[in-house]
């Protein structure tokens, strides 16, 4: 045997196959591969924190545009890309692409025609998942597609939900061990949702946990009046997290249906607006915490659960950090689900405190009125929304994109008769009533408004107290995720079209550029050819920045 001939072949095989195999162990330790970005949240803890330090507060001002990727679709890109050993995978509308992370040039594209009629809002996708050599895409119209990461060909294509029944898939799946975990959403159509696990090899469903009841016998059904649980919604809009120490996966749930009128569903309406902790092997509920019982404001709890170990009253404690759409920042013991802290991070008027188990006490007189009721803070879009926050173990701070001084008149309309695949929002107009002005209640256009009329901000909070350490003010609202690094850089963007780097310790602006469109995704960072890149999406394009050669 001529080893001299075989050796290059062996090396080629190792180089070509092994690095791209994303094993469960690699996913478990994703945060220790800062050259890559292997899950939606940058690791199972969803901290969106990178150990890379090539970019730092001293050289951030030298960042230059390296490449732009512009898909053929016009919807804004909300996807967080994955980066695996120099290859970047992302998705938009009906297409997944694998590209060279250093140049933005495509290796392959995979097309699946998502029917436009399945689009109830905007055909956006939050991202992909990867395991082994397979990329997983949950499509808007309810399919879960396994794609060969090397060739871009479909391995299998399973229908998980029927969009005609008011469902859609919007999330980036979460792969844990041999399971793909995700759940459907319903856009105010009263379709009861769930979190489920599917086999990574076959797509076969392994377990399912309903976030709204499916039977009157379930304990959760007793928190809904009558049979209102039948159309309770409680959608899954963003990806959950995973704690290997407890083998629990945590998912936030959306609002109950009908969303803006709770008259038909007196009660807490479990498990809407909650975080549910599920055993990864069985899907059994270990604990839950409901942030907004009996929600009538559309305050989805669809934020990404950030897992961290912080100093809590003098002792290290494994917690979950959560800035909620209802305007409160929470600290929850992630092992037991115990409520530890709830503190407003934006101006709010709906809550006058918490009881001993963390149940919010609603302020009197702010319940939605039939038409143009009392103003409530935060408004419908909330103090924050689905935008990924970040926790930096380096600074010890929690960062969140927020809407400050933001209010809107509460109102509730007629409850529509439930019809499969139809609107069930509780916001219907009485016969003869004038149509509401589009955007009513959101104040003046951002180009002209004052700070008192509301502003977006990146806020840094002390994770143990919720105390604000600093804020970087924007004029317009923001939908951007936040990225932090071990060199104490913070990257985020804005609806104004700006993408910027801040000093994560004090919020000082270090660098910015105008990308000309809404930043509605979370920036990520990685290494390619030895250079640290940071990529972000603005409007319907992706931009990559790095230091000059």
């Amino acid at each position: 045997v001529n080893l001299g001939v075989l050796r290059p072949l062996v090396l080629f095989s190792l180089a070509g196959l092994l690095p791209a195999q994303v094993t469960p162990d690699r996913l478990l330790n994703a945060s220790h591969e800062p050259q890559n970005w292997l899950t939606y949240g940058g690791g199972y803890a969803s901290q969106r924190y990178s150990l890379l330090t090539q970019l730092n507060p001293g050289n951030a001002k030298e960042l230059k545009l390296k490449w732009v990727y512009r898909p053929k679709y016009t919807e804004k890109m909300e996807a967080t890309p994955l980066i695996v050993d120099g290859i970047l995978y992302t998705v938009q509308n009906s297409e997944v692409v694998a590209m060279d992370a250093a140049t933005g040039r495509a290796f392959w594209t995979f097309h699946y025609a998502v029917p436009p009629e399945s689009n109830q809002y905007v055909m956006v996708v939050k991202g992909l998942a990867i395991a082994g050599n397979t990329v997983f895409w949950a499509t808007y119209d309810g399919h879960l597609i396994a794609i060969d990461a090397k060739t871009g060909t479909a391995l299998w294509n399973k229908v998980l939900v029927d969009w005609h029944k008011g469902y859609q898939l919007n999330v980036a799946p979460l792969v844990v061990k041999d399971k793909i975990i995700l759940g459907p959403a319903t856009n105010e159509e009263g379709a009861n949702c769930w979190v489920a696990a599917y086999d990574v090899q076959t797509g076969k469903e392994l377990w399912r946990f309903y976030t709204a009841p499916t039977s009157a016998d379930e304990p959760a059904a007793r928190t809904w009046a009558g049979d209102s649980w039948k159309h309770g919604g409680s959608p899954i809009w963003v990806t959950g997290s995973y704690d290997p120490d407890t083998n629990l996966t945590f998912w936030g749930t959306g609002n109950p249906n009908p969303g803006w009128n709770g008259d038909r569903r007196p009660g807490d309406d479990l498990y809407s607006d909650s975080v549910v902790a599920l055993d990864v092997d069985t899907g059994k509920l270990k604990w839950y915490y409901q942030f907004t019982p009996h929600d009538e404001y559309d305050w989805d709890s669809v934020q990404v659960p950030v897992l961290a170990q912080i100093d809590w009253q003098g002792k290290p404690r494994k917690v979950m950090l959560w800035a909620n759409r209802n305007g409160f920042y929470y600290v929850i013991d992630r092992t037991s689900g115990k409520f530890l802290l709830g503190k407003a991070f934006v101006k709010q008027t709906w809550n006058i405190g918490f009881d001993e188990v963390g149940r919010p006490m609603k302020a009197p007189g702010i319940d939605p009125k039939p038409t143009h009721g009392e103003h409530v803070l935060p408004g419908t879009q909330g103090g924050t929304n689905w935008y990924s926050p970040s926790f930096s173990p380096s600074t010890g701070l929690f960062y969140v994109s927020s809407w400050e001084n933001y209010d809107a008149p509460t109102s509730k309309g007629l409850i529509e008769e439930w019809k499969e695949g139809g609107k069930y929002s509780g916001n219907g107009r009485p016969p003869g009533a004038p149509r509401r002005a589009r955007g009513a209640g959101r104040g003046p256009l951002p180009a002209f408004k004052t700070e008192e009329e509301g502003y977006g901000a990146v806020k840094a909070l002390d994770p143990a107290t919720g105390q604000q350490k600093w804020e970087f003010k924007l004029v317009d609202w923001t939908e951007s995720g936040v990225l932090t690094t071990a060199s104490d850089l913070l990257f985020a963007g804005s609806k104004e079209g700006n993408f910027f780097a801040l000093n994560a310790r004090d919020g000082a602006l270090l660098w910015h550029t105008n990308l000309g469109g809404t930043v509605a995704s979370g920036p990520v960072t990685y290494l390619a050819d030895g250079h640290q890149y940071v990529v972000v999406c603005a409007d319907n394009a992706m931009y990559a920045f790095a230091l000059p050669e």
Partner: protein
Amino acid sequence: MLQSLGAWAVLALAAAPLFAQSGDAAKGKALVESSGCLSCHRIGDQGSRTGPDLSEIGDKRTAEKLKTSIVDPDEEVLPENRYVTVTLKDGTTVKGRILNHDAMSVQLIDTKQDLRSFQTSAIRGYTILTKGLMPKPQLSDEQVTDIVAYLSSLKGTEAP
């Protein structure tokens, strides 16, 4: 005085001709042209661009709203008609109608009708003014009625 004439208010698409019809539009036009209103406002190809353009104001606001804008200009100011005062790092100030702003910069049309843009990092600060943008005019009720009649007649012209 008619530099006070504000379109500084909410769009109201329905016209209210009764009030306007009671005035003399020709007298109102003369008053507008003789009273300095055009030093801020523009009508057609006349007047300054620093204040709200009134060329099509008759299509946009009711006579009642126009009257309020004249006699009590602070009552209702459209956000897009607000002014901004920018203070430069050397202490000088620049005032103008705000056209845009974000976290990094502010854009305005200044009192010389020049388009200006300032990086927020290069200025000491800026203040958006929502009140006190024009003085209350000294006009008789009849004069106000005439001016409202004139403004209500301004429907603009079709673009070529």
